[in-house]
């Protein structure tokens, strides 16, 4: 299935794109998708514990299944200012 992943903030800056389209097998989980993206974008700091995976507006669990048409957004956060 074909899915679209949106990058926010730091990830968008480092990836140089707002979003990426990927062809993935059905039944892929959030964690698996993150691993695939880490291979595709080795320059992105996609550490699992520091990456927020927003799936249809909710924070996803690692074993949550991705379905066609899902809205996916990845980002990191830090404080300051």
């Amino acid at each position: 299935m074909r899915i679209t992943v949106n990058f926010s903030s730091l990830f968008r800056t480092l990836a140089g794109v707002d979003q990426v389209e990927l062809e993935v097998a059905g039944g892929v989980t959030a964690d698996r998708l993150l691993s695939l993206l880490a291979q595709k974008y080795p320059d992105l700091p996609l550490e699992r514990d520091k990456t927020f995976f927003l799936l249809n507006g909710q924070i996803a669990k690692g074993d949550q299944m991705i379905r066609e048409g899902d809205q996916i957004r990845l980002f990191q956060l830090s404080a300051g200012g």
Partner: protein
Amino acid sequence: MNGYCGKMLFVDLSTGRHEVQPLEEDLAGQFIGGYGIGAKVLFERMEPGSDPLGPDNIMGFTTGPLTGTGALLSGRYTLVCKSPVTGGWNDANSGGYFGPELKKAGFDAIFIQGASKTPVYLWIHDGEVEIKDAGAIWGKDVIETEEILKSALGEKSLRAAVIGPAGEKLSLMAAVINDGHRAAGRGGCGAVMGAKKLKAVVVRGTQEVPVADPEKLKAVNQEIVDTIKNGPAARIAAAFSTFGTTMMTGASALSGDSPVKNWGGVGIVDYSEEAATRFEGAAMDPRYRVKKYSCAHCPIGCGAIYEVNDGKWPVGETGRPEYETSAAFGCLMLNEDLEALIKCNHICNIYGLDTISAGATVAWAIECYENGILSKADTGGIDLGWGNAEAIVQTTQEMADQSTEFGKTLALGSAGAAQKLGKGAEYLITVKGIELPMHDPRLGPGFTRTYAMDPTPARHVKGGLGLQHMQISDPSKYDPEGKGQADLEATAAQEIINTAGLCLFKNFTGVQNIARKLIPPVTGWHFDAEEERNAGLRIFHMRHAFNLREGMKPGDFPLPKRSVGEPPQTEGPLKGVTVDYKGFNQNFFKAIGWEETTGRPSRSSLEQLGGMEYVIDTLGL
């Protein structure tokens, strides 16, 4: 004494006299610098019950052992005083160049008591101290003031910590600004200066701060630079160097990190993704950035100078809005107009207002207006709806210059305004009268303990687990059980970062244990993990003791219900989240040994830390 000038200056503005006292090595070793030494001095010299806006309040301008030594990431100085907002302990720090220049001028700290009858400023140059007439600069904005001072004193390289008209008029959100756009903002310290009729503290010096092992310091500095360039966080550090704290504004707004719609909204529902992205450095810089800005001794340089010369709100050159400002004047009030944000930031800088409290106060007023608590009769005709950029700019301007009744009311801060008006308290997002910063505990649950129980409530730059929690999505972070000790350790470590004069943004560098790396070569001290921890806890307790002596108890610091998810949000990333803030407090209290109802520490824990005899006696522990 290496790392220090070895001198503290005490000025009495009521009498016009000043006195120089030695900074003893024992005191420096136990309380490090900054608000550590500041808390010790104020606890010993200020009577409890002193009026924060009266002559008995003592205001300190303090530095740390690393300040002015060339140690990297150490350009900050810290103000200390009693807060006119909370009635308790206050400290606020700022970057730029003032701190290092103060040490070059010959002093580790300046403590000012009393009040002048007429406006004055302090001129401190190479150990010389003068109290000078400020008649020509009273009423001037921060930038005008610096320019006049440079011209009048014939010294282009001076550095000044200045209040604007907001501080002169005792706004409870008044900041102290240095270098035009660097702010020691929180807790109303600008009003304390204003009450003393002290317009500015101006410093210039040529003295060297002695360093125990310059070669070792050079090596540690090189290690820091290498880590920033090539370490595990190199890509993040590079992005942070370019875009600063606006690097993640969009993600913060969409994730629930930034509060939205006065803490009652949801980013992905109430705020557009386009606006969230528009407020990021990556989007703003190409349009407005004219140069980078670095604080003293900083290899990152996370700041920038913008220039806006046309459009509705041309301001000329101005500092790039930081994250907290962008959130407070952005998603918190549903403002999507970038140039309105830049204008409001500029107003706050030149009039001398804390952008967090200022933005939060406008957001509170908007919610009151939208819900019929405030009317056009209250706002002076301003149609103060969510996201109305013109209304937001006008309100901010009136709040800064106090040219209208509405502006005078809002200048008291949201809690002060609600009290004066006798309405709107249900929409306050404050702890002990001070507005919460722009990191939501519903995403970073550890912030609940810090926002409520740090001696300076409602601060995101104080220690605890909030900064860690907001960076991880693992839901186990919401369980407070067993987290008290980690909270305590993180708190102690941050006390040393703050008091040494280091910058919180070492977090973006990937450099670990930076205080333990830098303090030994500068001071010559052995400074291991245990000493760091004990000094951090000693300092934390000293600030806490100041509040205890004022009669404050943990129950005096309730968190606003929205900030802990009571009730929880019904949509968005934080849907269903209610933070067990009582659990986080209880676990912290257990780890630190404080009595739950009174907040009193045990005598034995303070004896163990050492250096707390006066506190033990005074509090009758």
